[in-house]
């Protein structure tokens, strides 16, 4: 018994130490990026020789933390921009949490974030004095079907009928004789709001009660990829080869078409912020997002440039 107790105490202690030192170590690996070393070779000062590139030189000494919350659809271009911006301005920390467009805008109005992101236009009740909105990209919403589905084109009217349950069989829109499985997003998703608005689903009677509702762009793709007769919608920036993106009103869902406005399912990506509370860092980040450099990231990540 005696021995056992000692052994147990020892084991516990070792485990604790191991766990603690484990985290300690992890900490080290991350913090040693920031550690200052007084290496004799480290004589170079930044920006002395390479000041030509004005878009990325950290001219002002920006610092502080920027909290961004809101739409999850903007994630890919946004995180790419954040990554670059933080690399250029090491004293600025930007935290982005995807909470959905409505929550992001609400957070901004409540002062709970520095920048809100939205993947739909503002509703009238959200437009408040002092709230500034900036379009930093456009996005197309792709209509996704299973790759095995022969259908290649659909009209917005048919989309509305399918998502409201008036059309229930693929043969009615030129496909196989099979019932349509409708996949939609959870309530308060910006993509869903935008999609429903663009196809005027409300006029057609609202979303079919029996539609499958899943959380997140990823789950839409999994559901559509896993079911031959499914139809869903995802942001351009998320679409991959497991699903097939079909033409809408005869127009292919490409960034060019969306930008030119021919593709009917496109929407803006917005930053919203309170103008009077914006710190220099916030302003700098928004400027960066609109710059040539920032727009490059939009394009690389499936978004559409604003110009």
């Amino acid at each position, binding site marked *: 018994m005696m021995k056992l107790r000692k052994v147990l105490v020892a084991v516990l202690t070792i485990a604790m130490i191991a766990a603690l030192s484990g985290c300690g170590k992890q900490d080290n690996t991350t913090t040693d990026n920031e550690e200052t070393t007084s290496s004799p070779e480290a004589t170079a000062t930044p920006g002395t020789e390479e000041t030509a590139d004005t878009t990325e030189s950290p001219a002002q000494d920006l610092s502080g933390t920027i909290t961004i919350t809101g739409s999850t659809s903007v994630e890919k271009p946004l995180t790419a921009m954040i990554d670059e911006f933080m690399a250029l301005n090491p004293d600025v920390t930007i935290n982005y949490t995807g*909470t959905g467009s409505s*929550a992001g805008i*609400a957070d901004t109005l409540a002062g709970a974030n520095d920048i809100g992101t939205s993947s739909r236009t503002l509703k009238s009740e959200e437009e408040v004095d002092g709230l500034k909105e900036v379009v930093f990209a456009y996005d197309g919403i792709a209509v996704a079907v299973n790759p095995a589905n022969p259908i290649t084109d659909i009209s917005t009217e048919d989309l509305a009928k399918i998502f409201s349950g008036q059309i229930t069989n693929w043969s009615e829109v030129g496909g196989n004789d099979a019932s349509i*499985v409708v996949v939609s997003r959870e*309530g*308060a998703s910006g993509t869903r709001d935008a999609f429903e608005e663009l196809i005027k689903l409300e006029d057609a009677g609202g979303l079919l*009660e029996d*539609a*499958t509702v*899943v959380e997140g762009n990823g789950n839409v793709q999994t559901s559509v990829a896993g079911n031959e007769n499914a139809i869903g919608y995802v942001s351009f920036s998320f679409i991959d080869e497991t699903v097939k993106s079909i033409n809408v009103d005869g127009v292919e869902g490409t960034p060019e078409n969306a930008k030119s406005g021919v593709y009917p399912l496109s929407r803006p990506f917005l930053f919203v912020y309170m103008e009077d509370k914006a710190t220099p860092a916030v302003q700098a980040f928004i400027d960066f997002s609109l710059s040539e450099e920032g727009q490059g990231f939009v394009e690389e990540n499936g978004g559409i440039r604003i110009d």
Partner: protein
Amino acid sequence: MNNNAYKENLISRRKEYPEKVFKGIFLLSALVSVLSVIAIIIFVFSKGLQPFFGEDAYSFLEFITGLKWDPGNDVYGVFYMIVGSLLATLGAIVLGVPIGLLTAVFIAELAPKELVAFIKPAIELLAGIPSVIYGAFGLGVIVPIINEISPTGQGESLLAVICVLTIMVLPTIISLSEASIRAVPKSYREASLGLGASKTQTIFKTVIPAARSGILTATVLGIGRAIGETMAVMMIAGNNIGGLPTSIWSKVRPLTTNIAMEMGYASGRHQDMLFATGVILFLFIMVINITLTKLTGKLGDKGRSK
């Protein structure tokens, strides 16, 4: 024998104080649980009941009997979710209890020792697997299978939910049933065998009836787990925005997933309504708990009268 003096005064005074302090600390710690329950009830209920009071209150009757959940249009009905939750739980119990009980019988009565040494850890592992993994399994294996066989052509369904929940309640039911089967005195078995009953008859006519209170407790706990499960179910339920389920191929939107799906996004009344859904869920759990207390209370009485 005469240095008792050091005991007299030292002991009683010096020890009294920490004794009381620590007793207080222990009592306070024990009360943390009580306070937590009270806090959970107060916060969840006060937020969850908010939309039903005051100006432009939402009708509670419409909430509780509603068949459609459409926050965008200020429509919040949870009746179809309650039905979905109950059906899913019922299905999981109807399948899970017999399978679990028979597996428990196998482990406790029939399996050779070497096999038990293998199966028991396996079941413990089953109990320890995070529910998200069950969800991934449901999404990756069960849903595609149902895709193939369902008349609706869709895998996300009540059936998928029941399958996953059945698997998830099995460990609870097996381990508790096994324990209560093992607790049945050997003399019962001997008596039954001695009267000429076969081993199987003995198990079903003597052992299981004797262990029934334990099995009942296991069932109630299984119900609790099934009705409260969230993440695994959310990935495979379909989560339709309205309509009562009509068959096992129908989609369902259990109460738990309704909360989990929209919690990150919701604000204002929408968020309050998710808390209201939580209140309904809480009430169900309370009923289950009280049943359990009654059940174990009865169990204890029986034990005493023996």
